[in-house]
């Protein structure tokens, strides 16, 4: 029987895109950040990065505290990269004071920073494994990361917050017993890292989720000021360790890792290779630690007033180039201006264009591959920033072409 049905139901297909908020409380993100994702079906057409859940206003706080108190405040901008923050600030002050620490202190600083790089890269790779749903690998990496934390505790006196940097040197020395213990821990860690690198290279789950997700072209990297492993994963060689040669990086051999693929997988592989490089650097330092005097300066005798002037220090933090600008007016014990620019500030806020064209499920993967550090980003810049798209054309094309 032919049914002459009248239309009883109308299915309206919305012409607008769906807005999917990812975060600030989301199982995939461990830090408070809101990605407002506008999706057309499964495909992302626009992303707004909304932040401001974590802001404290550190730059103003630094102006209100003395130079020396700021060393510890700088170290607390970020938990995972605390020694690099402190190192960068301390070096900015050293440039103003024209103090150069002795060789032993310079080597020990690099040792602390490279240990931090190892554990930071391990944690982000672990989180990546968790996000793609590979929790066993997450647990395994975190278990081995404990070895580095122990090494850091032996060196600096605390697992996470080292408070290791001081103007003119470091805050505690290392003896033969400690040296042997740290070396022992690192030697045991090395085969594990090689194993995890192999897992990331060969495992089907990881390759299916990471390869060709979140592609970044070199020209996008430079025009959007992306730094660190994100830039190096796209073949842009930016590494302030190699170019500024601060501390002992001019004497310790290491390779700058770059990859040309430019996807999430390449960024994670850059991190694994850098972990291995950092391990080798640590072993080199422990082997060849110079003994030219006491690396620990007497904190009671350090100058209270910093001479007038400006300095700008760069450091290669785990997430990329971190910069501190310090200006002293030469009159008081307070800095006139401290400007902190963290790598995540550039990498997260300026990279909203990267998500366009991905499927919704890939957004957390692409975000994690940038190694977001929200506390870094926000404490520093006091923001609640809304990223309006710069890609209106893309949006119209994508939305218009489809509907």
């Amino acid at each position, binding site marked *: 029987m032919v049914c002459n049905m009248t239309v009883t139901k109308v299915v309206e297909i919305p012409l607008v895109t769906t807005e999917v908020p990812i975060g600030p409380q989301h199982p995939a993100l461990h830090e408070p950040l809101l990605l407002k994702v506008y999706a057309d079906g499964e495909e992302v057409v626009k992303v707004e990065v909304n932040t401001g859940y974590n802001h404290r206003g550190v730059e103003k706080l630094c102006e209100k505290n003395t130079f020396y108190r700021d060393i510890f405040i700088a170290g607390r901008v970020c938990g995972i990269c605390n020694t690099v923050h402190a190192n960068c600030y301390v070096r900015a002050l050293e*440039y103003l004071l024209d103090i150069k620490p002795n060789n032993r202190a310079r080597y020990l600083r690099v040792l602390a920073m490279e240990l931090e790089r190892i554990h930071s890269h391990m944690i982000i790779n672990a989180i990546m494994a968790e996000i793609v749903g590979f929790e066993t690998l997450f647990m395994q990496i975190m278990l081995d990361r404990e070895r580095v934390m122990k090494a850091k505790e032996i060196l600096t006196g605390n697992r996470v917050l080292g408070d290791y940097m001081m103007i003119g040197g470091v805050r505690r020395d290392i003896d033969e017993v400690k040296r042997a213990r740290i070396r022992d821990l690192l030697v045991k860690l090395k085969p594990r890292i090689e194993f995890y690198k192999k897992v990331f290279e060969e495992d089907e789950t990881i390759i299916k989720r990471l390869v060709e997700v979140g592609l970044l072209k070199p020209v996008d990297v430079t025009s959007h000021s992306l730094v660190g492993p994100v830039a190096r994963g796209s073949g842009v060689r*930016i590494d*302030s360790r190699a170019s500024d040669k601060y501390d002992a990086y001019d004497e310790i051999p290491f390779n700058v890792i770059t990859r040309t693929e430019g996807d999430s997988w390449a960024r994670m592989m850059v991190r694994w290779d850098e972990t291995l490089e950092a391990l080798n650097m640590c072993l080199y330092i422990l082997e060849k630690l110079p003994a030219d005097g006491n690396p620990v300066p007497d904190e009671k005798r350090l100058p209270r007033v910093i001479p007038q002037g400006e300095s700008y220090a760069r450091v290669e933090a785990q997430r990329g180039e971190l910069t501190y600008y310090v*200006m002293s007016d030469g009159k008081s014990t307070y800095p006139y201006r401290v400007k902190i620019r963290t790598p995540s500030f550039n990498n997260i806020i300026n990279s909203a264009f990267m998500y366009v064209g991905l499927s919704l499920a890939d957004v957390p993967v692409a975000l994690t591959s940038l190694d977001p550090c929200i506390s870094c980003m926000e404490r520093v810049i006091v923001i609640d920033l809304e990223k309006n798209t710069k890609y209106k054309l893309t949006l119209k094309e994508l939305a218009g072409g489809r509907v």
Partner: protein
Amino acid sequence: MSSKRDLFSKYAVKVDLVKPKRTVFIIRPENVRPLFKDLIEQHGYESFYISTIVGTDLPGEGKIRLDYYVVLLPEEETIVVRTYLDRNNPVIDTLVDIVPGVFNGECETHDLLGIFFRGNPYLKRGFFVSLDIAEKGIYPLRKDSGV
């Protein structure tokens, strides 16, 4: 490398130094945009990135100093483009349409110091600092803000 520096020297009023060995080119505010335009035209996007924008309030001189820290690639040399703006009317042309990487820096500087970047459609007061402070028209990093 020298040609890139020549470009900066062309616009520079004065050359200075920030420790350690970062050359500062002091240029007029209206020349900032042409300088970066020339840089992109002659050397392309992959020859530099803008690393940091630092604004400093100088109430003694009645000025706000604006520094663009530019890293030249591939040699990774940091140079500073410095300009001074009038404190009562700090306006400068935006770079966001030619160098998207300044987006975060411009927005931040606008909200903390009140510098207006002419032509930047994304500037909005009250998304850096909390709204109660922003509504009073306070720029926290100005020295007389009282924050």
